[in-house]
């Protein structure tokens, strides 16, 4: 009955807490996808990578009793999936979007296949830092229990934003993404750069998956991801391939995702399923508003098939 004590203030508070909790996988997947798309490829398979990462992290955490080893394993699994996507897409006639769809199905299938024995056991969780210790109100404490991965994600988005502008590697990725021909003229091999960019993107998506199974919701089930990996791809377009924008958009999406549970916590149960659909509806609306048939998107990498 704590929810009634602070009344309707519980709703924005729960949304804030939810935004921080729910947004973390979005942050990692969208940063990963931003790197991949900046190099001129699109990897729709990150949804499958996310699920496989979640399973790998959980399984390794159960077996070794260390969530950090689980996280590492998920990153490696994601790296492998990303490198596979990057490698197979270099062949003439192989479509990166279609391969992404296939990897989405394959990654989930493989995760369910190997994850079956790990549905029951309990894995140790990733640690959270209680920033709400100053308050006596349990809702405030719950909302400000911030997982370390969220903080790492926030720092990473700043680093990536800086790196795209100021480092040699950032420049190389951008050149390859804008024009394969220009990159070749500079003596760069676009396929190699894209291979690495997709690999790094996959590794970040794997980390996002580890967060799902090792912190929130914090268990491994076959329903662990419901399109977060895919929404993150749409979110990157909305964020105009800017890592800081990805971070902000991820928070927005996290808040939308927390809307249903937040309203439920204060007793609003009508239309629960529609509130559950809020992130998808929000994504769709954002895509409709920000796309245009007459002009190309500002900041879009020139080689990206999705905006051509």
């Amino acid at each position: 009955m704590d929810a009634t004590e602070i009344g309707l203030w519980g709703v924005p508070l729960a949304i804030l807490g939810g935004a921080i909790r729910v947004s973390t996988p979005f942050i990692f997947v969208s940063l990963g996808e931003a790197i991949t798309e900046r190099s001129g490829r699109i990897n729709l398979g990150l949804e499958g990578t996310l699920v496989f990462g979640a399973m790998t992290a959980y399984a390794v955490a159960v077996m070794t009793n260390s969530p950090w080893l689980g996280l590492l394993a998920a990153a490696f699994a994601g790296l492998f999936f990303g490198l596979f996507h990057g490698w197979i897409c270099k062949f003439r006639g192989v479509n990166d979007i279609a391969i992404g769809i296939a990897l989405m199905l394959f990654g989930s299938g493989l995760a369910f296949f190997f994850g079956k024995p790990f549905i029951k056991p309990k894995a140790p969780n990733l640690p959270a830092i209680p920033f709400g210790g100053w308050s006596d109100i349990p809702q405030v404490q719950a909302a400000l229990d911030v997982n370390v991965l969220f903080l790492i994600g926030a720092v990473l988005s700043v680093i990536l934003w800086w790196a795209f502008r100021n480092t040699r590697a950032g420049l190389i990725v951008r050149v390859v993404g804008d024009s394969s021909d220009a990159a070749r003229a500079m003596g760069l091999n676009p396929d190699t750069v894209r291979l690495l960019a997709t690999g790094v993107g996959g590794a970040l998506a794997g980390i996002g998956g580890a967060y799902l199974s090792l912190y929130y919701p914090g268990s491994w089930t076959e329903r662990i991801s419901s399109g977060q990996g895919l929404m993150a791809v749409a979110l990157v377009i909305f964020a105009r391939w800017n890592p800081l924008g990805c971070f902000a958009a991820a928070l927005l999406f996290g808040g939308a995702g927390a809307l249903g549970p937040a309203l439920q916590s204060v007793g609003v149960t009508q239309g629960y399923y529609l509130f559950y659909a809020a992130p998808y509806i929000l994504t769709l609306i954002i895509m409709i508003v920000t796309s245009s048939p007459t002009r190309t998107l500002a900041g879009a990498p020139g080689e990206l098939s999705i905006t051509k």
Partner: protein
Amino acid sequence: MVDTVTGAGMPALFGARGYPPVLEWIARRAEAFVIPLAALVVGMALFSLFIALVGKSPILLYETMWRGGFGSWFSIQNSLSRAAPLLLAALCVALPARLGLVVIGGEGAIVLGGVGAAAIGVALSGSPSSIVILAMGVAGMAAGGIWIGAVGALRHYRAVNETISSLLMAYIAIALMNQLVERPLRDPASLNKPSTQPLADIYRIGNIPGMDVHWGLVVGVVACVLSWVLIEKTRWGFAARIAGGNVRAAQVQGLAVGPLIVGFTALAGGFAGLAGMLEVAAVQGSANASLAAGYGYTGILVAFLARHNPLAIIPVAILLGGIDASGGLIQRRMDLPDATVLVLQGMIFIVILFSETFYGRFKAFNPDLWKRAS
């Protein structure tokens, strides 16, 4: 992805290199059969390797798969029953693909088609069965058609990527269905599994005489044949193939690309909606969460395997229906998880997409490059 080989300049090259014309004719068409078949075999071989690596016998697996899918009259009927929704779900991918669109949210149209059909079926209860079944079919097609037609409209008029939007709309459709069967359309008697009111028996679609397979299979086959005629033999299909090859060129030619895209995507969604209606009227008897059984996603694989050719969809859907049907037996007999079938489908999918790189690379399929027969 227009098949440039089909019918290209056949009479002009008549026997020019001294080979029998029939040989050239076969060679030009063989590529579209040989490459997907080879990819299928390679995919299954890779899967054998995977099964061997997890310590099971691939031979036993394929034997079980054959037995569960096609080994007996009982299993064949089971496979055909599963092929019925796959035929329609695959058309939902294949038709837009001919226009160059990758629509992967057929699952949403199936779900809403099922809910729409169930709602109409319950609302009209008391009317003659032929009218009710017809109205259910129309409602299912309309619900699915509006859903995927909207994806096409957003693509053309707002440049919203259709792959992402269709999948997002599938999630929204499933949420919408959950809401509808939870509240306004719920049968109070359905306690554990919220469902709409069950259809009276006279409004259910029965089996094909002499078979334990419902009429949906016939509907699906007819839909595939009609789609083939539409694409290959009508001016709309011709226009669609031009637009699929190059949108700008089609617009320069004065083709109304917008209505073409909306029309094709709406028809595609209509077929998927019909699949949902058939699941309700022939299998479930009411609309509930079982509608989201993954047919929409397997349909994507069927369409890509068939290279978006509606006639090729028929055998491919039966094949994948059989693989689907054998899942239970594999699970029981070999102690493998039910996701085994998903892994196989994923592997075949990847190999099929990879095989795209081999088109046009083999001289054997291109008589223009043959040396003169001496």
